[in-house]
């Protein structure tokens, strides 16, 4: 797939808007359901970062694969996990995409090209090289995308994965979502380099800083990185500067960051930004569509049976 023009056609724009909104409403809804006690465990949410998952996944083929993190809801929906299967998984129902065994931190579905999300920070950064290696060995044209946070770039796994992918020119795009914080820790407190993209040079591959709050910018950068990978020219590191509008996890009061900082980033919310381009009418149509989809997903999850205790013992070994 060649690099795209800055302004895609209306259908594409509508699709991007629908997907970002789907993620936003999904997250708002599950947060509410969590507080209501309908969803167990904890949640690492994606509000604010929608442009990254949506912009990247829009330029992927269904046969391409992604790896994800402890914050996978957005990646899962963007790659095609159905809202029903994702919602049911959060509920711990047997109809969830992982049959209730994975939960919020492990959403995934091989049928849409997504491994169960890996909640070990940096975990996907080595595993993704195996996806790329499989594609290379099979001489397929598939591409693998590794989503990870800026905090993960301080893990040894980041280093080993980048180096190996680079030296073997594997068809991989490393997408770093730099939302400034790893849990409560600012990146500039744990790295002397402010741009993760600057680390690409250590592996002799291109690194690029992208406005992660602009879905069109992400999509364009993603398209050329994916094209490069498909052409066998090797991996690219894309650093998308973004921000999570909510807490790190469900219980986070966000005392470690300033209200002004949050407000400034909310100003750059990717959804209104695209809505302005799209026009009110189209937008409202899509919004109604999304509301219905989410409502249906919640209904589906509620109506589904709890995972059967008997199933606890299955799926350990193949």
């Amino acid at each position, binding site marked *: 797939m060649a690099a795209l023009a800055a302004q895609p056609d209306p259908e594409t724009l509508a699709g991007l808007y629908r997907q970002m909104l789907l993620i936003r409403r999904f997250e708002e809804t599950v947060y509410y359901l969590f507080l209501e006690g309908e969803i167990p465990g904890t949640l690492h949410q994606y509000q604010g970062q929608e442009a990254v998952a949506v912009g990247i996944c829009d330029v992927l083929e269904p046969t391409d694969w992604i790896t994800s993190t402890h914050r996978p809801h957005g990646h899962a929906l963007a790659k095609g996990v159905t809202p029903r299967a994702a919602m049911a998984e959060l509920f711990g129902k047997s109809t969830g995409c992982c049959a209730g065994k994975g939960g919020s931190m492990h959403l995934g579905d091989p049928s849409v090209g997504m491994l169960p999300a890996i909640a*070990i920070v940096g975990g996907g950064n080595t595993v993704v090289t195996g996806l790329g290696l499989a594609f290379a060995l099979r001489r397929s044209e598939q591409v693998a995308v590794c989503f990870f946070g800026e*905090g993960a770039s301080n893990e040894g796994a980041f280093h080993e994965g980048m180096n190996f992918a680079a030296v073997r020119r594997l068809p991989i795009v490393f997408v770093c979502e730099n939302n400034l914080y790893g849990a409560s820790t600012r990146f500039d407190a*744990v790295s002397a380099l402010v741009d993760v993209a600057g680390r690409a040079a250590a592996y002799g591959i291109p690194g690029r800083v992208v406005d992660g709050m602009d879905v069109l910018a992400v999509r364009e950068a993603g398209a050329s990185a994916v094209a490069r990978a498909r052409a066998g020219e090797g991996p690219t590191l894309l650093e998308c500067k973004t921000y999570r509008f909510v807490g790190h996890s469900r219980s986070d009061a966000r005392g470690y960051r300033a209200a002004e900082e949050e407000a400034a980033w909310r100003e750059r919310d990717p959804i209104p930004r695209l809505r302005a381009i799209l026009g009110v009418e189209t937008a409202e149509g899509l919004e109604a569509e999304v509301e219905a989809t989410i409502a249906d997903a919640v209904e589906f999850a509620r109506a589904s049976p*709890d995972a059967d205790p008997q199933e606890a013992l299955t799926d350990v070994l193949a």
Partner: protein
Amino acid sequence: MSSPEPSRRLTIGEALREAIAEEMRRDESVFLIGEDIGIEGGFGGAFGVYLGLPEEFGHDRIVNTPISEKVIAGAAVGAAALGMRPIADMQYADFLFECMDELVNQAAKLRYMSGGKISVPLVMRAPVGATNRGAQHGQSPESYFVHVPGLKVVCVSDAYHAKGLLKSAVRDDNPVLFFEHKLLYGSKGREQAGGLDLTAEVPSEEYLVPIGKAVVKRSGSDVTVVATHLALYRALAAAEELGTEHGIECEVIDPLTLLPLDVETVWSSLRRTGRLAIVHEDTLTGGWGAELAARAAEECLFDLEAPIKRIASLDVPMPSAPSLEDAVVPSVERIKTVIRQLRD
């Protein structure tokens, strides 16, 4: 020393915080290292244990690290080798696998490799236990470390022992893996732990609890039950019900230290009861219960009047759905059923 002040009831979280603060006051060489500790407006560590400490001790001695477990453990090893006393923090015990080399190949072996010329006095704290977070945030991996010569392994289940043992661990000249159960911190109220009272009497005066000594939590003459962490409370609940419902009196022992294991306390009970049940949330096969059972089968075989039973998490990765997790971890019901078999 002035007249003893009254003791207070503290949660494990509060007791650990006191232990850390006291040891940092006592010894300049004690420092903290880990992720998300000592951040202004932060969590005070994954379970709030460090809240308030930066105000007293400043940021030099509270080393907030990148997300780099190999560095957390490796830096602790290096600093300890020079006589510092790091208290390292792993947000979840599941992440210990990221620094297994530093713990197993470095921390545990450097002293021996040096011919005894150095020691590695570090403490690594790690929360265990299943809380509906799934396979990578719900493990109780303490048994892996019971297999490592050169380490000590502690599991705490109440505030009194938590404080005294953490202080002893800090003063110990060896690497100590210190495991705490997420549902027992008391930070999030009792309902999480199924209505348990998560506070215990803690003296106001300084005290230590020795590493390597078990405690009898309930005495009984019929069955010896050895259990840790949340499983200990489930075992105690089962014991009460077995007593009232079936007249089976269990003696319940909290080993507190898994390495070295205080078998004497267990044997002296076992010699009276002739029956042994071991309960832990770590998975069954290769769990620490196997070591205790194996030693009983060597050292107390002829005292045994019934097969040794182990009640543990099923041999599966931890599922996230409550309906599945409840089926995997040892429940009061499962404990009761198995112990009743011991009496048939």
